[in-house]
């Protein structure tokens, strides 16, 4: 047996190693699926923007398969899509993710999950990583997602990306206070 190493904050200087602000580009040339851009801002409990957050993304490919050995579904792997990206916020607290619309993946008890992104949030002032999910407001299956159903109904909309125009979605992260994003214990 070994004992867990505790988390510590990523601090304000992670960019020298984990990446400078800029669009997270998950959809490299040739990735299959509908191309989308997700853009948003990270806010703190006073409504101030958070210019030093790191948003990490994990998602399935367009067919609903993860590029990981433990996903053994009989769905195609897309060699041009890893499903992983990092989106550090800029001086305006803004982040941008260029990706493809994920397919549906299995959920608990033979259910099917709605298309979603897993997000991990790290920043100065965040001692232990925050974990959340992003769903798509205009995707019909979002209403029947088995994980979203576990979130109190009045707070679900904090997890919905809003369609701005074709292929562009808006999604803000609020770390505290009014409209606080739902974070998960998983």
């Amino acid at each position, binding site marked *: 047996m070994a004992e*867990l190493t*505790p988390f*510590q*904050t990523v601090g304000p200087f992670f960019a020298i190693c*984990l990446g400078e602000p800029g669009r997270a580009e998950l959809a490299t040339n040739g990735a299959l699926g509908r191309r989308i851009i997700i853009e948003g801002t990270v806010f703190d409990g006073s409504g101030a923007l958070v210019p030093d957050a790191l948003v990490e993304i994990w998602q399935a490919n367009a067919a609903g398969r993860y590029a990981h050995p433990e*996903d053994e579904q009989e769905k195609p792997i897309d060699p041009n899509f890893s499903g*992983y990206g990092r989106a550090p916020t800029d001086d305006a607290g803004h982040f941008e993710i260029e990706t493809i619309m994920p397919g549906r993946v299995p959920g608990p008890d033979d259910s099917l999950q709605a298309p979603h992104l897993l997000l*991990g949030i790290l920043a100065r002032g965040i001692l232990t990583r925050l974990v959340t999910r992003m769903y798509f407001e205009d995707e019909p299956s979002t209403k029947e997602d088995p994980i979203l159903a576990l979130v109190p109904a009045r707070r679900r909309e904090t997890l919905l990306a809003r369609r701005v125009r074709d292929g562009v979605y808006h999604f803000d992260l609020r770390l505290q206070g009014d409209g606080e994003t739902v974070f998960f214990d998983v």
Partner: protein
Amino acid sequence: MPGETYRRPSDDVHPPRDFPGYRGTALRHPRQPLVIVPQTLSELTGPVYGHASVADADRDLTTRGHAPPIGERIIVEGRVLDEDGKPVRDTLVELWQANAAGRYAHRVDRHDAPLDPNFTGAGRALTDAAGCYRFVTIKPGAYPWLNHSNAWRPAHIHFSLWGPSFLTRLVTQMYFPGDPLLALDPIYNSVPDPRGRERLLAKFDLSLTQPEWALGYHFDLVVRGRHATPMERQHG
């Protein structure tokens, strides 16, 4: 089918989200309770790195410039394990730190200490089949921060790794044994369990030291382990 689910850490392992001693947490912690959800295929999978993207040179932070960086050269070596003590192989370990004067090569670091043109302070390495990693770097300096009056961070090195899934993500800091600033540091002391704080300390290890060249420190990183498989439960 994916493997077994991951064990949830007990409450005293990781720092609380709201820790008044560390002012930065005040407006950056959720006030609503976290929503407990099951682990699905989404969480049981996670980023996988290709070997091709990591070069051997990336794990030596002392050979990037025209000359060696200023400071005390050190070797930092250890293993990445899960809670069952199983090695986590082929995982990317990323590291970043201040230079010997306590200054980061980052535009928002305004500490009045010199930058070292021969030190970027970032490195990365893949673990081998036994979960081992090894870096060569210089010992970072302590530096002041604005958390409270006369606040100084103890010397530390930031570590980041993913392990086998989204749930095994670990971002932490390694500290040096015997540092008098540890007792005064709210970030280090945000870890509730004293034994947990001890696990953030590197161990000086004479056997890792390279005579006439560099001192050696050992630092293991332990990520979440899985629930026993049905088979193990049956026999356990």
